[in-house]
């Protein structure tokens, strides 16, 4: 039963905006408690070394400095565990909340200072003397592994995914194409840095942590386990969150430290990260090197793909464990038939900041790799790259399409899609042939201009469940309570739209409560473009139930059979349109506590949106700079709840993708010192670099796995940007395969032009 769609599918204004434009938000740093102490972390200045001593006397002598902790003070706390893809063999590489014996990256927490004020805490960290004996550093994940500790080396695990007979494919090949491709080290870098404020409420015996984000329930359960408390005695509270992108809201050492300190000192403990800390201590992502080979026949059909890649996870295995390399291996084949496939991913550690996910984890990387490979097939065979894609695309009649392996605990089965239709629509919108001819004419006059095309399949809607409770209070307020989280993406608006349509009320009536562990007993949070799919369906299910309950209750009061009643615009009316009516508020007042329903949506499969990007750009031969002249995106997400929000996700993702393709990179010196520690070094796109974008959101392939056909919209804006840009730069330089590494910085373009 699907409602009439008064709100779903419409670009209604967001419910979130008013407090955010008036300065009334509640971000982490906006939360304070009386008599709070401030925590400041002493971080390792050395990339790899053995800790000889930590001396805090001078720091403790400063008036107002209350305590300094090092590992000995928290030795009872276990390392932080894995939230996803937690392979057993990776556990030995988990990070303790303060360094134990060794430091393994610049920025690693070594000690924690607690003081009356943040300026003082920072003064005190300068007085903590740490003596570290330097050890050789490992910075190249694709090089030879080295020692992690006395027992283990830096190759933590090798993951493998395969289907078909890869050896037979290469034996049968007409041609084999080999590429060596690298993706730089990037991260989500939200505008709000991390923050956590812990407070122990003695009266309730509850430890509270404010500043939670993304996955509050998982973090609550894990904090309870680490601190030896009952989960009901640890509660997490999400306020406003200044951007997520994968990095924010994962459990980090600092979160555990504020909680442990609040329990120990019985004082509220506040920690707010500064930007330098953020750039060296919060998760990095992306860095991989792929050595990939394709077996093709004489017509450019892919017979097999064999990829060996090296994933640089930095110094430790954090909460994501093997998630990024696992997704890379599973999603590399993209929209193409790959009859035989093998991916082997070496999960390596280096003396750099530990890694986690960043928007489109594993897909940004492997879409670059796969689309580079397809372009190389075209160059090798002399067949047009679009035609090569067309010959290899999975046909819509082959859906659902199983890949023959799994990721994130789900079998990879593309649920629906018409890839060729989407490709043709975007090519037509761009007037691709005309665009190419016009660029050719400009190149003839000496301009370095080119066009690039890239396709991708995304994944979204990761289960295993989401639960929603909808309550109408006696005062008539409608509350939708969920365990998902808001990271700025518009979850309140989107869920209110779904709920309102199903119930028969205005969407502005729905108060969406999220990220509060004391309001609902479980929840999965906001990641993997899962919220609209999972929570949307759970919301729909709960609203269907609540509507039945409300009509039945109204039927008793109005002495009318429930099936002759309808809820329209906040009012119970007879379906015929005549006779007595009853305001929802009157019903709520008459039935206090009765108007509540909950539902849980379970799903063991992800849903797979897909799309394509086209970019036209110009390379400045003198400076090596790239100017985007035109950018088009086609993205099929099954069903758009709010097209305005979907477009916002696409363009926002695209901007980040451009950053990773052209500007952003965490680089290190040979001794492992980070070189990108300010926004003057880690260059994110500004309004000058991000072009106007032509977006084409389609609904050709609704998912068969939920009522509305939703697929997640959060990542398709970023996924193929590196791939499309690389293709366009090749075209501009008229050198197929020139780009082998992201980001394509001006220096790298200048080098390509010199190498000519």
């Amino acid at each position, binding site marked *: 039963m699907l409602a009439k769609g008064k709100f779903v599918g419409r670009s209604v*204004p*967001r419910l*979130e*905006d*008013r407090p*955010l*434009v*008036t*300065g*009334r*938000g509640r*971000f982490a*740093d*906006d939360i304070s408690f009386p008599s709070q102490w401030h925590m400041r972390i002493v971080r390792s200045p050395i990339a790899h070394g053995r800790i000889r001593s930590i001396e805090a006397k001078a720091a403790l002598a400063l008036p107002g400095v209350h305590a300094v902790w090092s590992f000995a003070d928290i030795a009872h706390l276990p390392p932080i565990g894995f939230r996803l893809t937690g392979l057993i063999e990776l556990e030995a590489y988990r990070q303790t909340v303060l360094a134990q014996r060794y430091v393994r990256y610049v920025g690693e927490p070594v000690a924690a200072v607690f003081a009356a004020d943040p*300026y003082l805490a920072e003064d005190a960290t300068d007085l903590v003397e740490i003596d570290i004996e330097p050890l050789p550093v490992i910075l190249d994940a694709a090089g030879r592994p080295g020692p992690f500790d006395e027992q283990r080396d830096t190759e933590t695990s090798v993951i493998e995914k395969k289907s078909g007979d890869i050896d037979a494919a290469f034996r049968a090949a007409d041609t084999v194409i080999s590429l060596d491709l690298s993706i730089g080290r990037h991260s*989500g*870098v*939200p*505008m*709000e*840095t991390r923050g956590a404020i812990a407070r122990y409420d003695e009266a309730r015996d509850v430890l509270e942590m404010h500043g939670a984000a993304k996955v509050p329930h998982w973090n609550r359960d894990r904090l309870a386990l680490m601190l030896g408390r009952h989960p009901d005695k640890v509660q997490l509270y999400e306020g*406003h*969150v*200044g*951007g*997520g*992108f994968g990095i924010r809201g994962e459990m980090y050492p600092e979160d555990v430290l504020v909680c442990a300190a609040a329990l120990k000192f019985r004082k509220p403990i506040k920690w707010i990260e*500064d*930007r330098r800390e953020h750039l060296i201590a919060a998760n990095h992502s992306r860095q991989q090197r792929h050595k990939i080979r394709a077996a093709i026949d004489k017509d450019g059909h892919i017979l097999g793909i064999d990829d060996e890649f090296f994933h640089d996870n930095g110094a430790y295995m954090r909460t994501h464990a093997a998630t990024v390399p696992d997704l890379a291996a599973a999603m590399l084949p993209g929209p193409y038939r790959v009859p035989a496939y093998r991916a082997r991913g070496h999960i390596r550690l280096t003396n750099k900041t530990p890694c986690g996910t960043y928007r489109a984890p594993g897909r940004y990387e492997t879409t670059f790799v796969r689309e580079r490979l397809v372009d190389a097939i075209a160059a090798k065979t002399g067949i047009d790259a679009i035609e090569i894609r067309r010959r290899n695309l999975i046909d819509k009649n082959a859906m659902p399409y199983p890949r023959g392996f799994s990721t994130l605990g789900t079998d990879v089965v593309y649920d629906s899609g018409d890839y060729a239709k989407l490709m043709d629509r975007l090519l037509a919108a761009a007037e691709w042939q005309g665009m190419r001819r016009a660029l050719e004419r400009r190149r003839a006059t000496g301009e370095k201009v080119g066009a690039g095309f890239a396709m991708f399949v995304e994944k979204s809607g990761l289960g295993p469940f989401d639960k929603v409770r909808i309550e109408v209070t006696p005062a008539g307020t409608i509350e939708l309570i969920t365990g998902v989280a808001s*990271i*700025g*993406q*518009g979850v309140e608006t989107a869920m209110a739209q779904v709920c309102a349509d199903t119930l028969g009320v205005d969407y502005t009536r729905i108060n969406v409560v999220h990220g509060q562990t004391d309001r609902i007993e479980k929840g999965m949070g906001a990641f993997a473009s899962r919220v609209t799919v999972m929570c949307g369906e759970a919301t729909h299910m709960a609203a269907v139930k609540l509507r039945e309950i409300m009509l039945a209750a109204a039927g008793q009061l109005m002495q009318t059979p429930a099936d002759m009643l309808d809820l329209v615009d906040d009012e119970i009316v007879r379906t015929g349109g005549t006779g007595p009516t009853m305001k929802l508020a009157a019903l709520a007042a008459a039935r206090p506590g009765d108007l509540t329903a909950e539902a849980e949506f379970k799903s063991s499969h992800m849903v797979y949106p897909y799309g394509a990007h086209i970019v036209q750009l110009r390379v400045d031969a003198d400076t090596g700079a790239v100017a985007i002249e035109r950018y088009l995106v086609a993205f099929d997400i099954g069903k758009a709840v709010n097209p*305005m*929000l979907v*477009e*916002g996700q696409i*363009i*926002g*993702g*695209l*901007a*980040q993708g451009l950053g990773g393709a052209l500007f952003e990179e965490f680089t290190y010196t040979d001794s492992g010192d980070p070189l990108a520690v*300010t*926004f*003057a070094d880690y260059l*994110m*796109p*500004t*309004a*000058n*670099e*991000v072009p*106007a*974008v032509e977006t084409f959101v389609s609904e050709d392939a609704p998912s068969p796995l939920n009522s509305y056909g939703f697929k997640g919209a959060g990542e398709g*804006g970023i996924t193929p940007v590196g791939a499309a840009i690389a293709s366009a730069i090749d075209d501009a330089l008229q050198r197929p395969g020139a780009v082998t590494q992201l980001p394509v910085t001006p220096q790298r373009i200048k080098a390509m032009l010199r190498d000519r």
Partner: protein
Amino acid sequence: MRTKAAITLNINGRDYPIDVEPRRTLADAIREDCGQTGTHIGCEHGICGACTVIVSGEPVRSCLMFAVQADGKQIRTVEGLAQGDKLHTMQQAFIDHHGLQCGFCTPGFLMLAVGVLEREPDISDEALIDVLSSNLCRCTGYQNIIKAVRAAAKEMQKK
């Protein structure tokens, strides 16, 4: 270092007599000493612009100014834009054009845009984008921010 100076910050027309260390940033003083937390701190090194406020009519980065330097000056923050329940044209335009997602950078963009348009109401499109490129947003990709500011500029010209 720990001696404090007695200063008065005038924020949105109201005086806040406070005692601050000379090293205290204006951003921290506005937020912590005056309780106006709408001004956000994104980088503390003058690049992201989240902390932009208007001091004596000019948009400034309050993380790069010491509170003592703003003693006695007229400071405007995001909290002062709306008149009661009536949003400023710029605030309404950001809502209408989906010019924000997480909203963390938004106060800085609002104050930057308002400050510039009050000074230069008929700023060219090109110059406007150049001005907006001085602040960072990680969610929107800027296109809707540009649309919102252009729309607000037109509205503000009418008034």
